[in-house]
């Protein structure tokens, strides 16, 4: 019976999205509770699926009852169930959060906004759940299209950023489509499990090699891996708060998931690691991503823009974990998909709340925020410490496994890059913390009569619909760190290919 939950994960938000315009036409206010209520169901379903996978092992779900290579099936194993839980929980949290942000920024666009919000979530979960390479493309496009539209309604400069994103994103998606075509021409199949069986005999074919190359480049574009990240900063930065809080944690992570899926399930590790020289290339690109993202982030004075560059660097983390191609590294990468999703969600939620309350994102204007918004800033601080790799927050543990992975692979420079990145993050985030928590170093505010010391600062915390998601995410940062051992031993351990 639990099998049917798998279908609900996609069907419920999809059907629900059709009803959003209906509700909106009737009463606009209903959109928000409807979306929140609907998104609970995928979360429950994906938890149930994860539970089934953990107790009985992986299973597939045939859509329309057609047998796999002819019909389409869902592939539910530890990896996909795990990522599903991440996607569904974060989208629920962001949906709860979105209320004030939408009312404030896009009052007349509530209805299409929530419709697309649900479609984006549907697309992301469809990507994760499907076991068919072409079906994956369809959902990739659903999520991409809704993402384009959601970004385009952002602030100044958003349409231009979106157009760049559309062009580059379409190149990525088309490369992926081309990869499918090449696989199909060589094997005749589109089903992932089936492909995995057929491919080993064809590993020496040039067609397969080209297919692999296109997959890798296409997904690297979608994941925003250096140097194909150029679309990412502008697009994520100009998007509305609620949108960037959804796409920044999820879009790149889901692309990274597809990368892991293709490299280690559709293709065997034997091919991806030993027969093509792709791993070192990806690894070095990630190192550059980490440094480039970090350095660009250091140069920003706008908090959100800084975080966007941190996203670029964090993609490098995951890809390094993939490209060291050993058990520890991949464990770290999969763990970091989760950790980074939670951390990024928390940070972007905080930035949205700050923007909503104070109207600014400039770091140096965040003064006294610890008094105004103590809980928001506490959440920010916890997550910032996690980004710097301070235990017991979750960031430390993924970093630990990634470093073990690089050590095992003998890649010292990669290890050094990971370590340096912690330090860069420390500089980045402590700069913000200093501004928000401490008195200004220079008496630059003497204009107020030099009486800054005695001014009474009123608490002015974000509304509850914003605060609760933020606090949940911050608690998640700590709890996921403490229970990372449990998560690894019960889920991630089995998500890593057995041959490692």
């Amino acid at each position, binding site marked *: 019976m639990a099998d049917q939950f798998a279908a609900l994960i996609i069907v419920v938000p999809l059907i629900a999205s059709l009803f959003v315009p209906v509700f909106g036409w009737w009463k606009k206010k209903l959109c928000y509770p409807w979306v929140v209520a609907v998104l609970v169901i995928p979360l429950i379903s994906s938890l149930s699926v994860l539970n089934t996978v953990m107790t009985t092992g992986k299973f597939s779900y045939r859509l329309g009852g057609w047998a796999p290579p002819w019909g389409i099936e869902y592939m539910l194993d530890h990896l996909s169930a795990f990522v599903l839980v991440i996607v569904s929980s974060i989208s629920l949290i962001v949906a709860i959060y979105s209320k004030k942000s939408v009312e404030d920024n896009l009052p007349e666009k509530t209805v299409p906004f929530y419709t697309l919000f649900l479609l984006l979530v549907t697309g992301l979960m469809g990507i994760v759940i499907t076991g068919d390479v072409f079906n994956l493309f369809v959902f990739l496009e659903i999520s991409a299209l809704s993402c384009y539209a959601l970004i385009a309604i952002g602030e100044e400069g958003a349409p231009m950023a979106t157009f760049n994103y559309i062009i580059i994103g379409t190149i990525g998606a088309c490369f992926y489509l081309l990869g499918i075509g090449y696989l199909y021409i060589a094997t005749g199949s589109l089903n992932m499990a089936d492909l995995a069986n057929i491919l080993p005999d064809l590993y020496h074919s040039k067609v397969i090699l080209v297919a692999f190359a296109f997959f890798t480049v296409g997904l690297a574009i979608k994941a925003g891996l250096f140097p194909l990240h150029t679309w990412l900063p502008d697009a994520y930065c100009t998007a509305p708060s609620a949108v960037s809080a959804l796409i920044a944690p999820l879009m790149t992570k889901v692309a990274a998931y597809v990368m892991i899926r293709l490299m280690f399930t559709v293709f065997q590790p034997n091919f991806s690691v030993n027969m093509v020289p792709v791993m070192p290339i990806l690894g070095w690109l990630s190192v550059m991503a980490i440094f480039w993202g970090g350095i660009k982030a250091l140069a920003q004075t706008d908090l959100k823009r800084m975080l966007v560059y941190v996203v670029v660097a964090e993609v490098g983390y995951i890809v390094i974990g993939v490209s060291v191609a050993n058990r520890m590294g991949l464990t770290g990468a999969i763990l970091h998909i989760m950790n980074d999703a939670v951390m990024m969600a928390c940070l972007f939620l905080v930035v949205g709340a700050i923007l909503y309350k104070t109207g600014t994102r400039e770091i140096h204007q965040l003064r006294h925020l610890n008094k105004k918004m103590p809980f928001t800033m506490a959440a920010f601080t916890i997550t910032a410490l996690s980004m710097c790799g*301070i235990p017991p927050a979750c960031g430390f543990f993924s970093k630990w496994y990634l470093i073990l992975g690089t050590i095992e692979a003998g890649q010292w420079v990669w290890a050094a890059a990971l370590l340096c990145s912690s330090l860069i993050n420390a500089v980045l985030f402590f700069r913000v913390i*200093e501004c928000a928590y401490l008195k200004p170093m220079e008496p630059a505010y003497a204009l107020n009569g030099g009486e800054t010391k005695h001014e009474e600062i009123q608490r002015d915390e974000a509304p509850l619909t914003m605060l609760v998601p933020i606090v949940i995410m911050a608690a998640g940062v700590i709890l996921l760190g403490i229970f990372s051992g449990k998560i690894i031993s019960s889920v991630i351990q089995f998500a890593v290919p057995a041959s490692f």
Partner: protein
Amino acid sequence: MDVLYSSRPLWAVLVSMIAAFLILATGEKNRNIRESWTIMAALAKFLIVFSMVPVILQGKVIEYTIVTFYPGLLLQFRIDAFGMLFGVIASSLWIATSFYSIGYVRGLNEHAQTRYFFAFAMCLSSTIGIAFSANLLTFLVFYEILTIATYPLVIHKESKEGIMGGRKYLAYTLTAGCVLLFAIGMIYYMTGTLDFKAGGFMAGSGSSTVLIMLFAMLIFGFGVKAGIMPMHEWLPTAMVAPTPVSALLHAVAVVKAGVFGCLRVILYVFGPGLLHDLGIWLIMAYIASFTIVVAGFLALGQDHLKRRLAFSTINNLAMIVLGAALLTKSSMTGGIIHMANHAFMKITLFFCAGAIHVKMHKDYVSQLDGLGRQMPLTMGAFAIGAIGLSGIPPMSGFISKWFLCLGALEANQIIFLFVFMTSAMLDVAFFFPIIYNSFFKKPMDDVAPHFDEAPMFMVIPLVITALLSIVFGIVPDAFFRFFSLTSLAVQNIMGVG
């Protein structure tokens, strides 16, 4: 070795963490309730820690596993004699510091007191975590928490120097944390285990070049907090912090955690045998000696009282490390017991500096003339601490120096004997003028001095710690069983090596 499974170590760590959140929840409005949390937690922590001492002295270890990540990779507490020693020092001195802090922050009407007590409690929590860690990973986890928990204390004043000091502190300690992370990863990769083992577990797990590199990294990582030169720069800068913080930083928690880490690496990760074979013990000893002598001279040049004390701390910590690096039984005993003795004496000195600051708002050595007549208790305690640190009997400092000198002879390294002697003379040189001036010189402002002490909350703790320094000099095993614990730890290490 008998192993006793108990959750007491966990509670010892958690009690102050829980208190920290209670403090945060209580807030600025109910100051008395907030302070009572601190004191209750301090007492509870001490009782929990101390209740385990008899078990340890029977030669057992207490173990508690928090979580397991991978085989050989787990968060675990295991209390042995050495860890116990550190745990007792930290938890007993926290009681003194708690009372003292209350007097200090109220005396000065400091801002952000809630944050201050919160961070303080977190610091102690992680210090005990460090003391009880069973392996390098657990150690690292608590070490990093300690780094962060101390940061709000360092920048407490929020002045320009404070923030700069905080930045420098973070730059040093976070870099060290990264290096440690890498080194520990390497060790796990090479040996598959991270558990501390008396006498070391690294022997034969890699080429000597790799081992030396790892040793250097670990010593760098822990040495930063221990203020070993040339990584000591942050310590004097961090003196802008309020005095109880300096006392905690420089006598109990942070620097001792660094030294504790160094000793763990030398004695429990690499082990005397391996270090002897690799020949790096001598290099280590020279670095420590260099630190001892240079820090002593630098201390002479400081007019700011707390900075002078900071350099004295660097000097003494290096002495502890040198004791361990000499790898003989006596030197180890001396080094380990000096952790305890130095803690009590140095915290007395810092308490005195704080009391003077609160009462007289004087921070410089040159301002202290004639103070002894106005604040006899404070300056008397200061004299006891200073004499003790110079290694003059019957203070406890004498015991540790005696063993250290004995160790230098046992190791057939006369040069280190001279290092200890020089250090003692430098101690005399930079402490005695203070004592002399304060008792025998006339005050600068020519007002007839009358008895006017600092608040009782401050004076009582510092008198008690001063008296304890004398008691430990006469009966080293009194109350806290420091000497028994030390000799047990040394036995464990030498028994294997």
